[in-house]
């Protein structure tokens, strides 16, 4: 019989090796799945993982997709470090997009340059407001934040559908659900003509370094780390648990909301019934794949973005189903969790002998 036995020491090296091994094994498993589907595994894997990185437009698309993943993943990893399990970032993303888009919807002919900063701010506030609900219910009634934040995702999704089909629907849109296209002043500036990389992408690259500074240099960052790994020690040091729950949820919600409004105000340019390919949930994988570390999240967000872009390419040029993208993300998480378990425990064989008196 095999059992798990806790390791006396955990190596930091193994902790970082685990995501790399997970990625490698995912590619291997993917190859076998492609083979079973009758596709040449080498070609499919190339299209999936390499091709997006071989052209400027591919790289630009990866960067655009990585942006929201990094922003959300960063906010989530802060909460996960503190032991606050916000898994409703998808809802906070949508709430941010909704509130942040309101100025563009109501002032659709605006040319005022202040409209964009105003939208970003409202986006952050929208995400925060959505995250404030689990925070309030947790600190006030000890309600489980996992359930509350998750269920609020569906509320946000339905609210979005309601708005774009009802009050916010484009009156000149022939009845299709969706708002008017945003005015130019309400769109994030792009840097290079022909490529979709925009200001939001840059912000997504800067935020992790800011988070790194906060985590290592400020008292707040220290409190988050202590609160997550030893709640009683946090209490001993006078760290308020309610304050930690509020802070991490608001920061996580705010970053998800910012990602949401930036998505609406860039690549989409309007609100539609569906504005996210599951960024909020995929960012959970990003946070763990990145070891909850800011730089790790930056790298993991990029890696996962490759699977999105590669998945699109694979649909077009190799005729692979869209579900393969989700499949790959699932396999990555599966291997990651398995290797993480093995960095903390070792498998040992125990004798099947044993008698009872």
């Amino acid at each position, binding site marked *: 019989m095999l059992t798990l036995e806790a390791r*006396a020491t955990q190596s930091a090296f193994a902790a970082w090796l685990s995501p790399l091994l997970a990625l490698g094994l995912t590619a291997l498993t993917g190859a076998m799945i492609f083979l079973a589907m009758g596709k040449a595994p080498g070609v499919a894997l190339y299209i999936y993982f390499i091709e997006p990185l071989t052209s400027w437009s591919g790289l630009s698309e990866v960067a655009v997709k990585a942006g929201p993943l990094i922003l959300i993943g960063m906010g989530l990893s802060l909460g996960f470090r503190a032991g606050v399990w916000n898994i409703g970032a998808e809802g906070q993303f949508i709430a941010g997009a909704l509130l942040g888009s309101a100025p563009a919807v109501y002032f659709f002919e605006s040319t005022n340059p202040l409209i964009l900063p105003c939208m970003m701010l409202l986006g952050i506030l929208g995400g925060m407001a959505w995250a404030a609900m689990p925070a309030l219910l947790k600190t006030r009634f000890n309600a489980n934040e996992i359930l509350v934040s998750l269920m609020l995702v569906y509320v946000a999704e339905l609210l979005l559908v309601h708005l774009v089909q009802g009050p916010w629907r484009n009156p000149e849109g022939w009845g299709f659900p969706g708002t008017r296209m945003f005015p130019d002043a309400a769109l994030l500036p792009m840097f290079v003509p022909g490529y979709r990389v925009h200001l939001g992408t840059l912000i997504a690259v800067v935020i992790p370094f800011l988070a790194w500074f906060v985590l290592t*240099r*400020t*008292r*707040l960052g*220290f409190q988050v*780390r*202590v609160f997550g*790994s*030893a709640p*009683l*020690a946090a*209490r*001993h*040091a*006078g760290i*308020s648990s309610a304050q930690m729950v509020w802070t991490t949820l608001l920061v996580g919600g705010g970053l998800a909301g910012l990602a949401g409004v930036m998505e609406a105000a860039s690549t989409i340019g309007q609100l539609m019934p569906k504005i996210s390919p599951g960024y909020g949930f995929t960012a959970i994988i990003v946070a763990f794949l990145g070891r909850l570390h800011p730089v790790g999240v930056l790298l993991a967000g990029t890696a996962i973005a490759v699977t999105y872009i590669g998945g699109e390419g694979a649909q077009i040029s190799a005729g692979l189903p869209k579900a393969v993208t989700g499949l790959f993300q699932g396999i990555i998480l599966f291997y990651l969790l398995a290797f993480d378990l093995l960095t903390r425990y070792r498998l040992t064989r125990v*004798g099947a*002998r*044993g*008698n*009872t*008196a």
Partner: protein
Amino acid sequence: MNEKPLLQLTGISKAFPGCIANDDIDLEIAPGEIHALLGENGAGKSTLVKIIYGVLRPDQGRLCWRGEEVAIDNPASARSLGIGMVFQHFSLFESMTTLENVALALPPQDLDQLRERLETTAHDYGLTLHPDRHAYDLSMGERQRIEIVRCLLQNPSLLILDEPTSVLTPQETDTLFTTLRTLAAEGRSILYISHKLEEVRSLCDRATILRGGKRIDDCNPAQETAQSLAEKMIGRRVESAKGHTAPAAYEVRLKVTDLSVRSDQPHGTDIRDVSFSVHAGEILGIAGIAGNGQTELMNALSGETGPPQAGAIEILASDASQMGPMARRQLGAVFVPEERVGQAAVSDLSLVQNSFLTSAFRMGFVNHGLINWPGVGQYAKEILDEFDVKATGVDALVSSLSGGNLQKFIVGREILQSPQLLIVSQPTWGVDAGAAAAIHEQIQRLISAGAGALVISQDLDEIFALSDRIAVISQGTLSPPRPAGEVTTEQVGLLMGASRSISETASHAHA
């Protein structure tokens, strides 16, 4: 002893990653003998006993039971040989009665018959038990008696007791010893694990002394002095700590008035109407058996469990009742809680980071929310140097420190903040003698410099060694503090068990 030994261990060795817990140990236990296994924390006592009881298997060596070599694969086979064990941490279900707890450990049988056997056995060995009371309602002494009776019902030839007196009052200890002597007179052997020298001297026929995983000596403890036993156990002379010199001043550092606290733990102990004060230049010792409200009192004083339900806590003449832990530290108090790992220190953070944990504001390490890490690093280095903490450096993780070194670090971290008031719970619990002496000396030095201290401890020797005045906590109430010179161990012991024995006698009369 010419008889064939009941149990004979030869050349037992057991290694764990990074340490050799048992190194070539021989041990012989004769029938009817009370045999002490004496050693400091970490000497290898527990490992050896776990090997005998089948919890661990030795890497090398032989076990002979009544002259025949045996392999003890698990506790069940140990029990079938006739070995019973009472662990230091009891394995009772709080919400079950005595009878139910005993029944659980035995093969299924009729409860009425079992009740009869239980009562007979308890009576024969002078073990007072109440079959229908729930475990959470019982004193530590009675819980231990359940464990002992549970073993006795299986008619063991060898009974192993791991630090049995650490949770008992002096009076309960006397009762236990009477029972153990009766058992020995019947021809049963007892393996008695302890680090308390006087107990071993008065109870045991023979003692095997372990140090650093090796067998150091076999002796007749009655013919040794406590000092000579201690030297064998520790490996060098132990100096007892010198007292402090500052005379108790009038200035009050801590004043607690009619404090009542509801425990935040299920089956915890509420604090009721506790009043006392601590002056500059004195140590007030609070004795008591574990689980009588010490944790609740400590957390209420440090502000970790929020404002008290009633009463007031004044630190240096400021009302601190509504303050959080950091604000209380700003008034001049520092706290060393009983739990080292997870409360006083975070195991997966470095010593530098742990230095910052409680000193953030008292030492001025935070400026506009930013941490002055070089300053904290300097401070951590000071703690390591001044308090002789053995670690690979200030960046070592807390989890890499031994218990004694970690406690020296924690006490050092608090004392270096130059507090006017030190509140410490179990300062040397589970700490080796060398570190314990160093910690006592540092506390004394702080008091000599004019601070006041409150020491909560279950260790009566420690209470008497340190305190100017002594009070006893029992079931959440505090006896009036009395000068240390005017009370005896026996009086303190009576207070420790006071309300408990009254309620036990009362319910006994009903039974």
